[in-house]
């Protein structure tokens, strides 16, 4: 948290992955707990496969909606290379919750650019922590790729300055209003994401700390 007791969470990915929806749900959870909230996107032409970065700031009073480089409390990356692209936004040594999916844009396919060989390794080499898991595989196992953003929300649940249940409530409320038949599946996706993140976290702490 910053000096003004404001929490900065940056959620990044690609247009169509549900990044903005995930941040919206997170914002609703913070509002339900009485926080002031501002949420802003640098979406550009997001519907066209571009980069999406969604800034969420909450606390007693939020002024600027933008998270500045080096000040994010948590980075949630829906795609591996996007985790690398945005990791400088974190506080030194900060944590990236990362979906291991690689989504390759046409400029890489036609050979103009390279997809990084080891985005997770590069993020760690910059001194940040990474808890990585395959959110898409979890979503597909549950039967619907669109559950991916609920999986990602579940992964955040234990890294927020409020109880996981508050976030789960916000998710379930949203689905109860819009798609009641999806409530139970989303609960499962949330728990699966939470478990996947926990096991990624345990795996990381078991690894020897690399020399800085």
């Amino acid at each position: 948290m910053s000096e003004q007791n404001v929490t900065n969470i940056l959620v990044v990915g690609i247009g169509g992955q549900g990044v903005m929806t995930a941040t919206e749900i997170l914002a609703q959870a913070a509002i339900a707990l009485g926080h002031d909230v501002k949420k802003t996107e640098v979406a550009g032409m997001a519907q066209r496969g571009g980069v999406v970065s969604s800034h969420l700031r909450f606390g007693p009073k939020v002024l600027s909606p933008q998270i500045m480089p080096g000040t994010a409390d948590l980075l949630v990356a829906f795609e591996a290379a996007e985790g690398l692209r945005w990791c400088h936004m974190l506080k030194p040594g900060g944590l990236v919750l990362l979906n291991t999916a690689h989504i390759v844009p046409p400029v890489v396919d036609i050979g103009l650019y390279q997809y990084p060989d080891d985005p997770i390794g590069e993020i760690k080499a910059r001194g940040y922590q990474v808890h990585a898991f395959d959110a898409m595989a979890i979503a597909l196992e549950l039967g619907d790729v669109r559950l991916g953003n609920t999986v990602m929300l579940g992964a955040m649940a234990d890294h927020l300055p409020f109880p996981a249940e508050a976030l789960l409530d916000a998710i379930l409320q949203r689905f109860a209003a819009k798609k009641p038949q999806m409530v139970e599946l989303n609960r499962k996706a949330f728990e699966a994401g939470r478990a996947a993140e926990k096991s990624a976290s345990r795996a990381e702490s078991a690894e020897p700390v690399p020399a800085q």
Partner: protein
Amino acid sequence: MASVMPAPSKSRLLLSGNEAVARAVWEAGCHVAAAYPGTPSTEMLEVISTYPDIYAEWSVNEKVSLEVAIGAAFAGSRAFCAMKHVGMNVASDALMTLTLTGVIGGLVIAIADDVGLSSSQNEQDSRFWGRFAHVPVFEPSDSQEAYEMTKLAFDFSEKHQVPVILRMTTRINHVKGLVTVGERIARPNTGGFKKDPARWVMTPAGAGKRIPLMFERDGALKAESEQSPLNVVESGRDARVGFVTSGPAYMHVKESFPDAPVLKLGLSCPVPVEKVRAFAATVDKLVVVEEVEPLVETELKAAGIACHGKDILPKQGELAPNVLKPAIAKLLGEPVPENLAQPAPVFPRPPTMCVACPHLGVYYTLSQIKNLTISGDIGCYTLGAGHPWNALDTTISMGAAMGIALGLDKGRGEADKDKRILAVIGDSTFLHMGMQGLLDIVYNRGNVTVLLLDNRAVGMTGGQPDPGSGRNIYGEPAPRVDFAKLVEALGVKKERIHVVDPYQLPVLFKTIREEIKIPEVSVIITDRPCVLIDDYKKQKPYEVIDEKCTGCGNCVEVGCPAIHVTRREKAIKPSGKEVELQFVRIETAVCTGCGLCVQPCAPEAIVHAEPRRPMRLVKH
């Protein structure tokens, strides 16, 4: 978007600036709201259209939208129109005379400046219009203020019988914050339109009499600005620097310098010069923080108030804390905060056309034809300038593809004498401002082939309907323009008009090849819907049979984002030339079976996908 049934009064809602303005427009008892879609302004009208008791429309362009609002305001109703910054360039012809007549019903014009260029062709500062047209400018700093100022702007507009500009920026339009909403106050229009030619018919004689009234109004607005509670001093204990600021920059200033005195301008035009002068006397240094141009700064300097501004701050982009803090530290002679971690170099993700977009067929075809100069226009098809097509050579303004094509034709030099001039324009852009350009090509016998890409929607802003869609803003059936008949009526010969399916590559290729050889104007209309709208029907997806793929890469040149290269190999052709082979797969989960990639695939390696294969979006 906000729900159809408005939330009850006193609710605290998480609203974007656009949603907050929409709510306020409705609460203010506004009767007529009009706009042409344009990022970042689009959602204002989209949300207004979900509210009851207010007429909303997508107009064909911003000028018409303002004229509709003007008519409603002349008739005594409250009226609203919204546009992106460049929209006001189009609408300004109406604005510059509207300022002489003024209004009866309140008229608020929301202009969304794209500071930071998230989705625009320039970064112009709409606050200039306040000066140019002698109209007041309100500048909100977040959603709550956007909501409150919109309501105040209607009252202000009626009080001074003047249109009010609500200047927003992307960082207001698209930021969500908490807004406490109120109730709608109905304002039945009882007076009606009052015949008054001296006021409403702006002949030279009539206008000459209204100009002094406009100057008189300037004085009244100035007095308002000096006293307005929207222009407020917030004291601070660190008076080494005092800030004059407005819009989103205000929040950045408060975030960066919580102890500094600030004069916040909510009614920023006309500038409350005396209020600033008094404020300046209380601080050591005065800094004007304004996005984009140094407007307030210049006016303060002209009034003899010493200040800093664009001498220490950029004239481009947002003035966020990471820009402000070092600039002010430098001004104070303090150590400048050190550079933080730098971003990692990662490939770019430029926006691309959608999977199965009908424009893919067009640009693939154009990329295969040599000796073309292609004047483009504004919309998704501007992306044709990018990889892998590189098949668009100019983009300037809405509808410009037509006039620029004619100019390329008439102004061609010796070097271009064999070049074919082709113009590409979408349906909505054609109806917005392209029709007149085509008429000019016809009238002046231009040698131009026009590709009119009719996808039945304003694609780039999210698939809003236009007069070519057959639907209105409410999704109700609406008269649908017949493009072939329209261009024929403009004077294009019937035999030079072709309606072509952009997924039928051989037909499209043949039609373009034939028409560019004919030295007169032709129009080729493609007629398949945008993949983002309901008219588009998905078909059975495709996949690649690995063993059959020869790596020729022809399908990659289509540019569909569902086609991925799995491996590259160097090979020597029988001619001895070295080539790079690209073996591919299709992301079956996102493929919608348009069949474009199948057509250039010689070895027939692309086939309909087997049903129930595990769908994976992930590439490891």
